[in-house]
């Protein structure tokens, strides 16, 4: 064995190299302040390891990036841990880099003869920041998508070559497949390769000049192995513990799949770029233009940092550098703090984040259904989710008159401004929560006037009452005139509520409701066949209620109208089932089809696309995958 090693040494000189690497002299003894460079190399190694494994599962395209990251995160063994390590180690690297830089400046390790190595370090810093920036986009979630767009727009603001630069990096005028393939090539190929090359040079030049020792007489001279290695190892262990802890207990976020049509006002860069983000928000900075704030000024500061070794040639140059560094750091910390503080107190920002989190949660929930994610991608899947979009459409199109459980569909009150004062607006049409369900029908049958009571708040009803012309307009309330169609259903409800609410008719009422539930045919609703049979007897065959009590038939008024037979003043109950998806769609497009002139609601024909109508109606009747927490 010894002979073999000796032979190998003779041919390769490995033991010399090893000796060179391990037994570097450290005058003044091993110290904790020397560990930062090693922890940086260590975190980079972690990134290489986890990065390559993630590479084996990641798929860079607009329809598969979020999806593959979701799959890593939610389905693959230890996926969330591996992604978490990669995510947090990247941030640890930025922190360690800042510490390393400050330590180098304070100890004067950048001064002659180490100028070149300092510059190599600055190049490495740029590469690491670029790795962070490119990596942020790869999951193709709302957060990364919008934040990165800011970066590429800034790139586009570069004088002269801006647009060309932006197009080349993005792979075109807009974000798409090639943005991801290019960012991925940068993130997993070009940048790490450059980093390795520059790191090699950095370490080589570092060894050439040796370690910078502030107090050589502090302790006896030692060597890198094992004394300094032990300290480095403990520091690395600390870094690893923090990163693993964050990966396990916090986890890397995967926000909602990127959707250019879905505003995301909470777009923020990674936290270590927040200071720049906040700086750009100053009015004074904006005044000078984007190129000034985002390119010239940071460029000038970086140039000043790069000039530090030269500045240090002068007397007091080093002091200037130290003061400058601390000033810059304080400015960065203050700006970052400001950005965080402002965001924490910005309700709109918080709401936007909450929305993205809810969307992300929903996307993951839908992706776990047996249908998985459609080939068009998770964003498409979410765009066709009634649970997500139904409430929004309702809030925009319906909530000016209607309510949903008292709110606008999205859980918010509907507000109005009267005489400069903001107050909650009264509803002017029925609260549609539970439309077409048994409960809805029960209220229609026995409490008709109350269901439509909000109509009394409407302008047309108020005007008609004021002018004493209520009898001339159709309205759903009890009429004085016996045979006036407007009030007939209210009248029916008044007389029959007395009958139907009697305990002996409870089962018959349930049977009638079952009949209409079957007509409405809401998805997922299970009809009780026995009750339905009885309901058919009562409604179709006009059988008397229990105890031989007669009920005035529904189809006296509602019968004649079939689907291809519009007009009339009472809704069609025998065509499309009342309250069903088709009935509701047709009703929203053209209320007069069912009600003639007896309905004040405007038709939405031509005002709503078929897709949006479908989302709205499916939401109203509960035709969507119900979230687990409801």
């Amino acid at each position: 064995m010894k002979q073999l090693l000796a032979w190998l040494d003779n041919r390769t000189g490995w033991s010399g190299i090893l000796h060179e690497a391990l037994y570097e002299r450290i005058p003044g003894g091993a110290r904790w302040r020397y560990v930062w460079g090693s922890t940086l190399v260590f975190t980079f190694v972690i990134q290489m390891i986890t990065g390559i494994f993630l590479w084996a599962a990641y798929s860079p395209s607009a329809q598969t990036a979020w999806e593959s990251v979701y799959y890593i995160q939610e389905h693959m063994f230890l996926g969330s841990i591996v992604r978490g390590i990669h995510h947090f180690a990247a941030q640890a690297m930025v922190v360690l880099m800042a510490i390393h830089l400050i330590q180098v400046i304070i100890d004067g390790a950048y001064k002659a003869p180490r100028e070149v190595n300092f510059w190599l370090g600055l190049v490495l810093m740029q590469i690491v920041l670029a790795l962070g920036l490119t990596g942020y986009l790869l999951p193709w979630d709302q957060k990364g998508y919008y934040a990165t767009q800011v970066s590429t727009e800034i790139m586009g603001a570069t004088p002269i070559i801006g647009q060309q630069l932006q197009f080349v990096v993005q792979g075109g005028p807009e974000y798409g497949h090639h943005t991801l393939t290019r960012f991925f090539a940068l993130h997993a190929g070009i940048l790490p390769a450059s980093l390795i090359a520059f790191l090699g040079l950095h370490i080589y030049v570092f060894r050439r000049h040796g370690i910078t020792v502030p107090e050589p007489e502090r302790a006896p001279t030692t060597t890198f192995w094992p004394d300094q290695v032990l300290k480095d190892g403990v520091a690395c262990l600390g870094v690893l513990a923090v990163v693993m802890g964050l990966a396990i207990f916090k986890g890397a976020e995967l926000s909602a799949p990127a959707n250019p049509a879905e505003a995301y006002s909470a777009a923020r860069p990674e936290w270590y770029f927040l200071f720049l983000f906040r700086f750009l928000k100053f009015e004074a900075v904006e005044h000078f233009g984007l190129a000034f704030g985002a390119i010239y000024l940071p460029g000038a500061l970086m140039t000043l940092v790069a000039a530090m070794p030269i500045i240090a040639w002068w007397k007091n140059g080093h002091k200037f550098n130290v003061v400058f560094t601390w000033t810059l750091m304080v400015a960065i910390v203050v700006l970052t703090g400001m950005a965080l503080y402002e965001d924490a107190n910005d309700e709109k920002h918080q709401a936007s984040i909450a929305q993205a989190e809810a969307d992300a949660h929903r996307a993951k929930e839908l992706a776990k259904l047996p249908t998985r994610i459609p080939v068009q991608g998770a964003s498409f899947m979410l765009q066709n989710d009634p649970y997500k979009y139904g409430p929004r459409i309702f809030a925009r199109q319906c909530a000016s008159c209607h309510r949903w459980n008292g709110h606008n569909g999205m859980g918010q009150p509907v507000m109005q401004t009267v005489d400069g004062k903001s107050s909650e607006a009264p509803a002017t049409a029925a609260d549609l929560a539970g439309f077409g369900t048994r409960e809805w029908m029960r209220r229609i049958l026995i409490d008709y006037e109350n269901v439509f009571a909000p109509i009394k708040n409407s302008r047309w009803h108020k005007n008609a009452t004021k002018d004493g012309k209520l009898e001339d307009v159709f309205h759903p309330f009890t009429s004085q005139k016996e045979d006036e169609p407007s009030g007939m259903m209210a009248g029916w409800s008044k007389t029959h509520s007395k009958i139907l609410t009697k305990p002996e008719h409870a089962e018959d009422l349930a049977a009638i409701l079952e009949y209409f539930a079957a007509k409405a045919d809401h998805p997922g609703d299970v009809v009780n066949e026995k009750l339905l049979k009885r309901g058919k007897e009562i409604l179709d065959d006009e059988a008397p209620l229990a105890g031989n009590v007669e009920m005035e038939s529904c189809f006296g008024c509602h019968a004649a109208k079939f689907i291809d037979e519009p007009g009339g003043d009472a809704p069609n109950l025998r065509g499309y089932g009342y309250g069903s998806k088709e009935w509701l769609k047709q009703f929203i497009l053209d209320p007069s089809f069912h009600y003639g002139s007896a309905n004040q609601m405007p038709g939405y024909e031509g005002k709503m696309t078929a897709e949006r109508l479908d989302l709205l109606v499916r939401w109203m009747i509960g035709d969507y995958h119900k979230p687990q927490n409801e």
Partner: protein
Amino acid sequence: MDNEKNTAADGVDASADSGEPRRNFMTSCVAGVIGAVVGIIPTITGLLFFLDPLIKKKNSGAAVDGGVEKDAEGRTKVANIADLSEVPERITVYNDKEDAWNMFLKQQVGAIYLSKNEGGKVSCFNVRCPHLGCSVEFRESQKDYYCPCHLSSFALDGSKQNKIPPRSLDDLGFVVDDDGDIWVKFQNYKATEATRIPVG
């Protein structure tokens, strides 16, 4: 110098007589262990993640909204018995295919040969050749199933007719419903084996 290096590398405390600083054996051990730990943890985690495919994930095979119609056993409809004859017919089998995060509906997943003999008995074979996985073809002239890749040949009942294939053709389980529709449980088996080992 050389001697010095070797002893140090072996972890033996080297005295400072050659001008080298003192090295402590315990320090070396602890440093070595910590170094190994910080290296191994991320590597092992990543490696286990990479071995994810070895963790058995069962695909329910149940019918999916908008997908292929299936019975409780996961069989799909392939043909009607009335349309079959003694001449085997090659039929494409469709199924829903789960692929990581996607579910591809109504995909072509394979093909079968279906035939009916005079007695009305139906036979159903996977076209995959058990030798190395090419597709067999029915040869009218020879009345056999023939694989052009390495010349395997199988009789109409699926039994192997030369020494090339390791086993006979893979017949697939099916049921015929009241309407005469044939429902097949499509399955691929590992090639090269004398016994049938299901894959996927």
